[in-house]
């Protein structure tokens, strides 16, 4: 599927890294403000899909490096694992664990199992959207 558009191809090349960066920003921002794993994943998947539209499925797979189904699986495993740590502290499943510390440049940082869950969601969304899109694009070729 190649649209043969110079504008789209040039823009796609520039937009890909920007959109990916923005998706990570959305992912990390999502804890207290609008954003999160789901929307971040959609933006990242949209970035790859834009690349797919401007180039072809082969180069889209190449830029992704891994099979989207692996991304999907890794995300699911990560999400499930993030529910477990609380159990070892005698708390129920899904209980969030927090680690706070101060880093030199970034200031106060709060890390949590919620973030791991969100990264899992991020990967699941990327994986599932791209599995669908790449298969559809290949079926059309």
């Amino acid at each position, binding site marked *: 599927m190649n649209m043969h558009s110079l504008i789209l191809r040039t823009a796609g090349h520039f937009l890909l890294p920007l959109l990916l960066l923005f998706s990570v920003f959305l992912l990390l921002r999502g804890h207290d403000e609008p954003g999160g794993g789901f929307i971040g994943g959609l933006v990242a998947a949209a970035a790859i899909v834009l690349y797919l539209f401007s180039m072809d499925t082969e180069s889209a797979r190449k830029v992704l490096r891994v099979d989207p189904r692996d991304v*999907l*699986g890794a995300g699911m*495993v990560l999400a*499930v*694992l993030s529910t477990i740590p609380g159990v070892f502290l*005698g708390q*129920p499943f*899904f209980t969030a664990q927090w680690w706070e510390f101060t880093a030199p440049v970034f200031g106060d940082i709060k890390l949590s199992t919620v973030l791991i869950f969100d990264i899992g969601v991020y990967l699941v969304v990327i994986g599932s959207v791209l599995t669908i899109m790449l298969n559809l694009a290949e079926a059309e070729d």
Partner: protein
Amino acid sequence: MNMSVALPVILPLFFGALSVMFWRSHFAQRSLGVLGTGAMLLATIWLLMETWEHGHVVMEMGSWPAPFGIVLVSDMLAAIMVVLTGIIGFATAIYSLSGIGKMSEKFGYYPLLHLLLAGVNGAFLTGDIFNLYVWFEVMLVASFALLILGGERSQMEGAIKYVTLNLLSSMIFLTAIGLTYGLTGTLNMADIGAKLATVEDTGLVTVIAMLYLVAFGVKAAAFPFFFWLPASYHTPKVAVSALFAGLLTKVGVYALFRVFTLIFNQEVDYTHEILLWVAAGTMLTGVLGAAAHYEFRRILSFHIISQIGYMIMGLALFTPLALVGGVFYIMHHIIVKANLFLISGITFVMKGTHELRQMGGIYRTNPILGVLFLIPALSLAGMPPLSGFFAKFIIIRAGIEAEAYWVVAVALVVGLLTLYSMIKIWAEVFWKAQPEGVEGEIHDVSSGPMIWMWIPVIMLAMMTIAIGLYGEPIYQMALMSAEQLLDPSQYIEAVLGVQE
């Protein structure tokens, strides 16, 4: 902290995620299938033992206290149901080793299997009505994908009917949840139960109860909402059929049991009278449909419906003995029905067809399979000393004690007709000679890779006999669950603590 109540949900999710990760390797997926369902079976047995000891096991997910957060609650009924899920999941996973085929594995059979089991267990264990809806949707998504694995035309047709009607029921369910929330301001089932007792507008409560009845009636394939079931259950792979037949409709029945004992227990005369009519209609239409058909899995599908009627009858009579009978019936039915479907898979491999008229002579070539079929078949019809006899006996005795003679009459006639259609299958598939002009044995199934199909069949048949011969512990468990169902204050207290 007792984590036994969360494991039956977490484990299949975890193994499902793992088997997505190893989607390239058929071997890894199969091993994860057997390992995962095996681990789940052990976890469910642990939960049953914990519940037997403590009465209720409760866990507040994410440490959010009830009634605001989502709780997982196991009472005796829920614990029994998850153990049955474990048994059927494990049996199906073993059966799939030789029965499912590489194509289905490639398209995600094992992850979907785990997801479906997680959905079923989640529905059994959740204590939150909206969460119940979510688990129903998880089940619907997984079961839709499992239904169309293979991509044949008949599968698509069945799946579309299945999904349309189930989505409709989900919408009605959601409406009912909305109304419930508007009335009580809570979604926690124990809290709803406690608060509805004080609501004055009993008319609206009855309307909501009827909405739940319709929503769960569709899921349970109760009369008059059953028609999606015989339209779809005979189309997918046999292992999938068996899983659906054993578990999916029973989630609907479980939801009926839960809602009509815990929440809507004020106007029993009205609501449970309707349930009784539903039960009679379900029994009768199911068995008549079965008598009219000549396709192995269609007959079995119609029998699911008629058996659902017995379970709802147990709930509708609403006496301690009747509830014992209902719960006992569910236990007996899940094992027997899944087994019959699994056997239909073996005969399909042998003959290459599900049409009774084109089969025959299996008893001559493979008498063991004939006996293995007769055990669940006669149990389904209620022959002593198999499990079905005691299940029917308890329910019918409860019906006589409650002086609901007409339902008892219906139940007895349906039992007789069940025997008729089981004997029909027996005579056509096993006893009569191979019809002329039709190819005989296509595959020999007594050796080689097909051996995996036999293990779950034998396992489930032995359970059927065991429930019949040593029914006492099963009866005790059913008795305990019936006592808990009739005294919802125990459940409410276990979930909400002593603040009431």
